[in-house]
């Protein structure tokens, strides 16, 4: 009797394990590597009044195999059109024999035409889809985005990777912003919707390189900032990690000194003067003497102090320039001054928020820059022997 029971138990266990193993194979979202096309970059353009054009760059399956020295392209691009991003994305399966796989997408490039109409509507799909990632980097191109995606970079075989690395490494110049999709939606959903997205372009030798910075009011492109202006913006945000500031040599005005900024600290505060908000920016910059063109010996306390002052003036001018530009030309608060007032003085913000565009034009901003040259490098004097 006992033996039969044990036997039944064993049979039952066997059946259950078979059922379970069969049912777990039925994991509907299973993807084999050989059935997916791994997307590296996406370009979005306006193709007609209704349609948008999607250019996707995917890794060529054969290039995954180790073939040394082959000069074949490692990526292919697929173009498709549709009335929305998702529509166009799915339409690309007409061309691709594999299902497109979005999780490893690195960059999204948007054409200027589309950017002027608004980008949040085309980006929604990439943020909503379960395969999408918020860490994707965004770029705007003055040319068609498809030209960028179809372009090449001399150092990298995969273009999207090159663009991604460009944005990551160029932060040492302090003249380029980096914007992920999470950043974009954070800025776009803020009290004063805006966005700043770096640009890419096809360079002179056909290689892709970084361009000026695009400024968005709400999600529509309103203007471009050149590299100096971008740095001015970054100073006010406290995001300059490293950069080169050029100043004139004391007592030898036609020659330049390059100062390498080592760190920047930014503090913002808000004061009320005559019932109007006044923003105070305090910026502390530490830098090192990186290069001097003149033969003059600059390693004297008074010269260093003079150069510190000159550096402060240069930085202050850059900041004033960008603030004036955004007040007069762009008419958009890209510094987050509005949200700052909201956070510190909620009651005052309730009055100001409805016509912040006008209030922003009259907003007074006090800038105070303190700089310190903490190091001079491995050399004291250029010539010596005096």
């Amino acid at each position, binding site marked *: 009797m006992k033996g039969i029971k044990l036997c039944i138990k064993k049979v039952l266990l066997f059946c259950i394990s078979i059922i379970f193993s069969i*049912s777990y194979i039925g994991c*509907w*979202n299973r993807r084999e590597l050989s059935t997916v096309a791994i997307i590296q970059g996406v370009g979005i353009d306006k193709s007609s009044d209704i349609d948008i054009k999607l250019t996707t760059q995917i890794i060529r399956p054969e290039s995954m195999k180790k073939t040394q020295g082959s000069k074949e392209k490692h990526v292919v691009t697929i173009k498709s059109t549709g009335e929305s991003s998702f529509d166009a994305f799915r339409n690309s399966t007409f061309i691709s024999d594999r299902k497109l796989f979005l999780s490893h997408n690195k960059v999204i490039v948007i054409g200027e035409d589309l950017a002027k109409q608004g980008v949040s509507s085309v980006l929604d799909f990439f943020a909503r889809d*379960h395969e999408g*990632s*918020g*860490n994707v980097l965004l770029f705007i191109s003055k040319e068609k985005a498809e030209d960028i995606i179809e372009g090449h970079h001399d150092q990298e075989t995969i273009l999207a990777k090159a663009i991604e690395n460009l944005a990551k490494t160029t932060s040492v110049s302090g003249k380029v912003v980096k914007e992920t999709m999470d950043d974009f939606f954070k800025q776009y959903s*803020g009290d004063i919707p805006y966005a700043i997205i770096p640009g890419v372009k096809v360079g002179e030798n056909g290689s892709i390189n970084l361009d000026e910075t695009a400024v968005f009011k709400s999600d529509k492109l309103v203007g471009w900032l050149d590299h100096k202006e971008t740095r001015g913006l970054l100073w006010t945000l406290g995001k300059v990690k490293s950069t080169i500031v050029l100043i004139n040599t004391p007592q030898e005005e036609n020659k330049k000194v390059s100062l390498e900024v080592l760190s920047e600290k930014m503090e913002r505060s808000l004061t009320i003067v005559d019932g109007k908000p006044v923003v105070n920016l305090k910026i502390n910059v530490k830098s090192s003497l990186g290069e001097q063109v003149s033969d003059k010996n600059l390693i004297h306390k008074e010269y260093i102090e003079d150069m510190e002052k000159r550096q402060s003036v240069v930085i202050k001018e850059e900041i004033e320039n960008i603030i004036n530009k955004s007040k007069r030309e762009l008419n958009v608060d890209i510094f987050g001054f509005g949200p700052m007032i*909201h956070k*510190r003085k909620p009651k005052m913000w309730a009055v100001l928020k409805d016509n912040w565009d006008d209030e922003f034009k009259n907003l007074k901003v006090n800038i105070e820059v303190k700089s310190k040259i903490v190091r001079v490098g491995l050399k004291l004097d250029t010539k010596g022997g005096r």
Partner: protein
Amino acid sequence: MEEREQISLRQFIYIIFISRAILGIAYGNVEVEKQDIIVEVFLSFSFVVLMMEVICAIIRELPNKTYIECSRVAFGKLGSVICLIYVIYFIYKDSVSFAMFNALISTAILPETPTIFLSITFIIAVVYGATKGLETIGRVAEIVGVIIIISIVSIFLLVYKDIDMENFLPLLERGPMPMIKGGTVVALRTLEVIFIAIIAPYLSDINKIRKGYIIGFATSWVVFFIIIICIIGVFGVNQVVTKTFPYYSLVKFANAFNFVERIQAVHIGIWVLGAYIKITFAIYIMAYSLAEIFSLREYKPLILPIGLIMMAINELLVSRYVDIRSITLSSIDIAGTIFFQVIIPLIMLIIIKIKKCVLKKI
């Protein structure tokens, strides 16, 4: 009923912690009342402590009696009817949580899998676990609890560098009323206050029940606090309200040095473990209560039917995500919860006290 199983204080704390904290991880955004959520967390905790004190007072009056027996002492024959309604209410409430879990899994990682398949596999495992009894659930909870704590702390460490405390300003912009309402909603989601009362005599040391309650809820609320600091600190309030599952988005966002990335699948795994403990415990409580109401000798045969009922309700609910959201925030739901979790225990306590006084005088 047969002789009672026993669980230790620590297992008891872990069960409370997992059942409550896992809900917070799933809902996340529903509880967000702009920046004030941070105050709301403390407020809701004090509400829960108040609810808990009422239950503890009942248990102190009638130790070694389950909640159902207490209700019979207080209301007589009506007590069984009230408890039956309680069970129906529990089934409804936990089906909603179950639907929420399913919604997260099907939205986030398995969009092509039919939801019925997800719920069938889940319910099979849950029914199996519940038939094994409370001691087993307690032991599993000890392991799972530690895993959940580790996962939440590690996510916190990963996103720590991106937290911007400025996002919490300005506090109390919209006055105290929405905050009190939000705090009540969060506190009322704590079915575990009643659950624990039902199995109170199972605790090896009944006098420590209050301590268990407080530690269990306090740890859950610490977890909520960490979650809220993370999601609002990283995304900012304006963006959190646009996300369906903010904590899941946060895990997706978390990365370190470009090599710890895409850990959301691990998170979902851990989180399914927690949901498993929660639903298993809930089904066990329901079956146990039903058995006691009808004076059955065994509760085990009731587990499978309850599981199937929950699955059916879940299929109705999960067919539209918007329905789950509107259910959890509807005023009928809130009113019902207040009735079951505040008013009935309070009436019960008063009647029991009065009865005791009257008996003493005689």
